């Protein structure tokens, strides 16, 4: 059995006709072709498939920038989920302590990094967001020089 849904994804309205038993992850990946959201388990245990639902469509560029600079993404598979959990943390708690970052990311598993560079990157991003002007804070910070498509990709429009 299928059901018709209208979803707002990355700011765009999308009509979906999907099987009722599908998870949101499957709808995003298979019906909408948004493969940036990853599949890591089937039971909601590892945090890899994290998305923001009814969250502000805030762009995560300072976080992505810090993850890229500090080597917080090794294999990169946990990274999209990790970034969104970090984003959600910083939205509610702009200057978290290291232990608060640990707590907030405890639902996202990573097997490569030992978390150290991820914690460093979230702290660095938080610092930069604090220092940035309100205007800059709301603008994507993609480094066009390093990755021409970054601005499009972070907005989910690539």
């Amino acid at each position, binding site marked *: 059995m299928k059901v018709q849904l209208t979803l707002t994804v990355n700011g765009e309205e999308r009509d979906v006709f999907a099987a009722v038993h599908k998870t949101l992850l499957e709808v995003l990946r298979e019906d909408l072709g948004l493969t940036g959201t990853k599949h890591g388990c089937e039971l909601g245990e590892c945090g890899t498939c994290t998305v923001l639902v009814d969250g502000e469509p805030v762009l995560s560029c300072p976080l992505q920038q810090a*993850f890229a600079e500090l080597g917080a993404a090794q294999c990169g598979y946990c990274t999209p989920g990790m*970034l969104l959990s970090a984003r959600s943390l910083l939205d509610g708690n702009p200057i978290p302590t290291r232990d608060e970052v640990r707590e907030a990311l405890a639902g996202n598993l990573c097997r490569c990094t030992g978390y150290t560079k991820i914690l460093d990157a979230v702290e660095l991003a938080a610092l930069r967001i604090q220092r940035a002007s309100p205007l800059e804070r709301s603008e994507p910070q993609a480094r066009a020089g390093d990755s021409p498509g970054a601005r499009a990709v972070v907005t989910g429009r690539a």
Partner: protein
Amino acid sequence: MSTKRFSVIGKGLPKIDSWSKVTGATQYADDFFLPRMAYGKLLRSPHPHALITRLDTSRAKALPGVFAVITGHDLPRVKFGIMPVSQDEEALCVEKVRMVGDAVAAVAAVDEETAERATLLIDVEYELLPPLMSIEDSLAHPEARIHEYGDGPNVHKAVSLQFGDVEEAFRQADLVREDVFFFEGNTHLPMEEHAAVAHFGPDGKLTLWSSTQTPHYVHRLLGKILDLPQAHIRVIATPVGGGFGGKLDAFAHEIAACRLSQLTGRPVKIALTREEVFYTHRGRHPVLMWMKTGFKKDGAITGMHFRSWLDGGAYGSYGVASTFYTGALQTVTYKIPVYKFEGVRVFTNKPPCGPKRGHGTPQPRFAVECHLDKAAEQLGLDPVEMRRRHLTEPFTKTANHLTVTTTGLAECIDRVVEASGWHEKRGKLPRGKGIGIACSAYMTGAGLAIYWNDMPHSGVVVRADRSGGVSVLCGATDIGQGSDSILAYVVAEVLGIEPKDIRVHPADTDLTPVDLGSYSSRVTLMAGNAAIQAAERLRARIFEAVAKKLEITPGDLEARDRRVFVKDDAERGVSFGEAVVLAESMHGVLAIPGSYAPPKRAGKYKGGGVGPSPCYSFSACVVEVDVDEETGQVRPTEVWVAHDVGRALNPILVEGQVEGSIYMGLGEVLMEEQVFRKGVHKIPSMLEYKSPTALETPEIHTILVETDDPEGPFGAKEAGQGPLLPVIPAVANAVYDAVGVRVDETPISPDKVVRGLELKRQGKTARVGPEKLPLFTFPAPRAIDSAFGLPADAIAERPFAS
């Protein structure tokens, strides 16, 4: 240390794929969606050991939406395995299943749900055989053989090697100690579940995209398994979302996807579930170990005898290598003049074990380093001082004929001791707090390929053309460690351009020269050296052309800052792009190969098939722990690792490898276990298979030590596996310092600590660990003279060096 100044090497640059990773743009195997693609599912055995008496797929085939259903009868009847000596696997079992999770049939359908429903309509009848679930079970029941081959009933491999007379060495000792240890099995748990997409094109050629660490070995095996010319098969390794050794074999889902695609004429994707990944395994072997060592009063070792019993699981996989590895590297860290090793790998009806980060060496390293601490206590020596005094010397051979080139272990020890405040803390921390140390060594690339051949272990083509663009083509697979970036860095350094000027095209058997794969910490050294050779050859051609134009000799030129110019007159020169145009005009197409194979050293005995390496990395680790005496919970509070990496080509990437290794070691020593009940995995999910989260991972301090090894690219040695090794025994030694309890088996879980504390309260020996050893008679040893302390042999041959 070389004083040469580098432009790229040694800089903490972002990886070349970092923006793809942090934007989610990287396409892993499961992110491939091809037109008309079908979805596959495997039907797996629910029994650990059984004969297949009936297999009927007709009901499944009749289900609407099903394109094809196959069994082992639809594949060539040939067994395969990653090691030539262990050809014991079938993609789809025909007569017999040997573990829960063995695949017996596969379906391709319009979607995953339909494929799964179809597997439930396949009728299979089994005749159950006695399941053999432990080494003792398997040795006690030779009549219930799991395989018909090996070194005895249910014995996959038995080895015995002797380098000098250990009994005589024990007679010369002031103290002879025996200990028994057990290391529990655990698994890789990569975040990306294995996935593969196969497409048999209308031209009759096969392409496989797979999350594999070894596209070359998969390529080789597919030819045999599918009975197709290898020349008609193309394997592309997609970016791997975590490997750690778990994606090093050819797997049932890859093979089934290929055959299903051939039959349906559609691309077929098979993506494993997390539960299937737990059964696919090939992870850390459970190993029982006995060791006996003779010590002089100052802690010098007179000789060591080491025995290991490996619970191999249902198939060979890399197990022969794993067996040798449990006895190979003990001799590399400390002076061990005389050494004897006996090891046996036993088949059981569980998912097969294989290589996981450190392959076969974390288990003996755990044993050796705990054993040394116990001996130090008996001898009244500081565990740091005892280790520090007896380190192997640079450019010497070990008892078992391995060649140590550079070693920075003394500096590693000094640095972690100082950084951790060891001398102020050891034995002086309040009750419940403790500090421990351990050291280790690891290979930088296996000296031999999995299959015997005289070809390069790694090949690189560096291409440049009139656009000024440079491409690097190499069969290596980036599994997150950053090997693509390393290739860009070394080529950029040689050509005097920026890493971002370079595109790296990895791991495509049609387009890239063979690299053996991402295992044994070999990629930076082997692909790095091949890339340097290719880039230097290209640079020579560029210099020749520029020299002609400037009417000077090529030796006067330098490449730097995207320019080629006269060394003593930097203004005189051309841009890199112009230089390439001149070179292409002079030489024609510029696509230049580089090849690497490990050096062949002189000497009759080469150290065996497993253990020899161009050079070894060294690590020292100090861990501080809190132990809750009520609950037995061990909490590491701080970890220091100093790692001799030869040279950090990019310190951020090396730190990342060290931090990840520490984290993984902490998981293994404190919580992770791959355990079974009646053949069924007890905890096949990410929630129940406990691994450290961000909350359980303590503050980590990484110290990089550089020794500029002559074998490494720009002096680099490995960093991806070695730093895991000392973490595990350092935790065990810290627990002892904290509460006086010896837990001689992993994981050091709360129940074991509590049991040890209870024994202590009762006035008994506060030790928790294995109490008995299996009955097994090892074969007579192959006796070889010890090479201990001899100077490193001259290099007899450097294949492909010129």
